[in-house]
């Protein structure tokens, strides 16, 4: 009824317009910078670029990709993302399976759960963690970027809640056929909960790709910096020493920075549609408990 009244129609028009404007405003800064990155350095430095490239060129991107240090850190990031996600998913999903069993089946379940949850509530903090990595001799080692964050308790809890929604009958059928818990996990639970696990995997990947701080403090050797940390030193600390002078001379730092920002964010933008399709569902499934 109410949709047909005139005040509501007026409201709808205004509301739609308002929300559209807000949504566009959200992305406008990124769009502007993308245009800067595609413009000639003269136009960018003169502040002539608004929402359309002036003197369209890919030069800034080409220069960035010619930089050996940039490519090195790109590779480090790919390595840490792939290895970190694979290891994290394996360790966390197996643990989540065991913890999804009821106390009747797995008596130590609650003890383990609290053992994990405590680390969510309290941590040793920055300095002790740093000294630990130092003592373990993991400075400049890729493992320093992977191992400390492997166990993500929040993800374990999410997956544990997915596993609880798997019908018991499937598992019982597997047990009758002689499967053990490991087998039941890999052959029954894993295939059944693949879409939900994909969500968690995507989030883990985004986390690894975006992580910059661990690289900043644990990687003393600049050649081992992951891309996010490299970007942080370049863009935020504005330290351009790792680019050779000749490369910067005929380029404006502004277009270079803009192009690096987009290259750094590109993988996230590519997987974003997949993320979006899954995450609402994933979060809702994880949040619903019987």
């Amino acid at each position, binding site marked *: 009824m109410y949709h047909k009244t005139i005040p509501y129609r007026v409201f709808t028009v205004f509301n739609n317009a308002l929300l559209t404007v807000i949504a566009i405003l959200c*992305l406008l800064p990124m769009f502007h910078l993308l245009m800067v990155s595609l413009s000639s350095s003269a136009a960018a430095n003169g502040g002539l670029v608004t929402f359309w490239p002036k003197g369209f060129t890919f030069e800034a991107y080409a220069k960035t990709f010619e930089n050996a240090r940039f490519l090195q850190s790109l590779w480090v990031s790919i390595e840490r993302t792939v290895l970190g996600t694979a290891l994290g998913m394996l360790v966390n999903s197996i643990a989540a399976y065991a913890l999804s069993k009821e106390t009747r089946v797995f008596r130590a379940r609650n003890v383990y759960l609290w053992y994990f949850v405590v680390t969510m509530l309290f941590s040793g903090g920055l300095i002790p963690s740093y000294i630990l990595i130092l003592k373990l001799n993991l400075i400049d080692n890729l493992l320093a970027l992977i191992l400390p964050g492997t166990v993500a308790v929040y993800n374990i809890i999410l997956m544990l809640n997915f596993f609880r929604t798997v019908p018991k009958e499937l598992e019982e059928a597997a047990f009758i056929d002689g499967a053990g818990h490991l087998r039941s996990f890999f052959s029954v639970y894993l295939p059944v909960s693949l879409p939900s696990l994909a969500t968690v995997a995507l989030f883990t990947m985004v986390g690894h790709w975006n992580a910059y701080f661990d690289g900043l403090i644990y990687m003393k050797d600049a050649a081992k910096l992951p891309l996010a940390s490299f970007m942080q030193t370049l863009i935020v600390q504005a330290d351009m020493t790792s680019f050779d002078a000749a490369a910067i001379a005929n380029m404006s730092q502004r277009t270079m920075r803009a192009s690096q920002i987009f290259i750094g964010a590109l993988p996230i933008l590519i997987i974003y549609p997949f993320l979006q399709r899954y995450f*609402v569902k994933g979060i809702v499934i994880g949040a619903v408990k019987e």
Partner: protein
Amino acid sequence: MEANTSKRLKFTERRRAEKGRGYKQPWSLHLMVLPAALLVLVFSYVPMAGIIMAFQDYKARLGFIHSPFVGLKHFQYMFSNDYFMKITLNTLIFACSKIVLNLIVPFAFALLLNEVRNMGLKRSIQTLVYLPHFLSWVTLSGILIDVLGQTGIVNQFLSNVFGIQPIFFLGDGTWFRLTIVASDVWKEFGFNTIVFLAALSGINPALYEAAEVDGASRWKQTASITIPSLLPMLIVVATLAMGNVLNANFDQVFNLYSPMIYQQGDIIDTFVYREGLLSGQFSFATAVGLFKSVISLVLIVFSYRLAYRFAGYRIF
């Protein structure tokens, strides 16, 4: 004799069957938790033991065993330090403004989004506003530093349209505070609407149908059905946010601040980083970090208890 054997056979059979059903082999379940448990032991519990250095004058060459104990020296110094009071205040200002705005803005946005009937438009808006959540603060700071710079597009716009002198968004203390809070809302408000949209979709449509029959206007329906139905979720989210009162977001501040505005922009976490890793004051920095962790722990436990008591909320 025969009866006995068959009885024993039956017994072993039953045991085997039970084993087969997975009820008698928790060792394999222990094995499955083991890798995660070990990693947590090394990378979470060992650093917790390292907190002992907050009560020592830790020297790398002496180690944890031989470094001298100094009791509460670092804590006394911390509380008598004016600068520490300042950064605690900064942290509280940032965190509390973010908590409040990150509740109100997503709540209002979810209500307005709920009125968009055109599904295509609704989806497009959602896609756009969720995106900043997934970009890192390194990326977003890079964008903000350019856009908000003295010659950036925002200042260009302000001077061309309103004739305002360039504003130092990141170089002036007051503007810096505003920028921090506003940019955090920009990044997170879209994503934070998700919980409210989920709660909205859970409202029983029969309530609205009944209201229609009674001739209630949409505003009346919103005020009497929608908002009361969302209230429990709002209360849970607000309660849980209490745990973040000392969490001003290290990544954001670290990537946007500069020595110029430390007085109004420095927070506990960035201070711990500079004191500890850049100046090498390991023990003092650990003490400051511990102060923050303990208060946060108390707040989190308290807020979860409240949320459980009043809304039956639990995480597992």
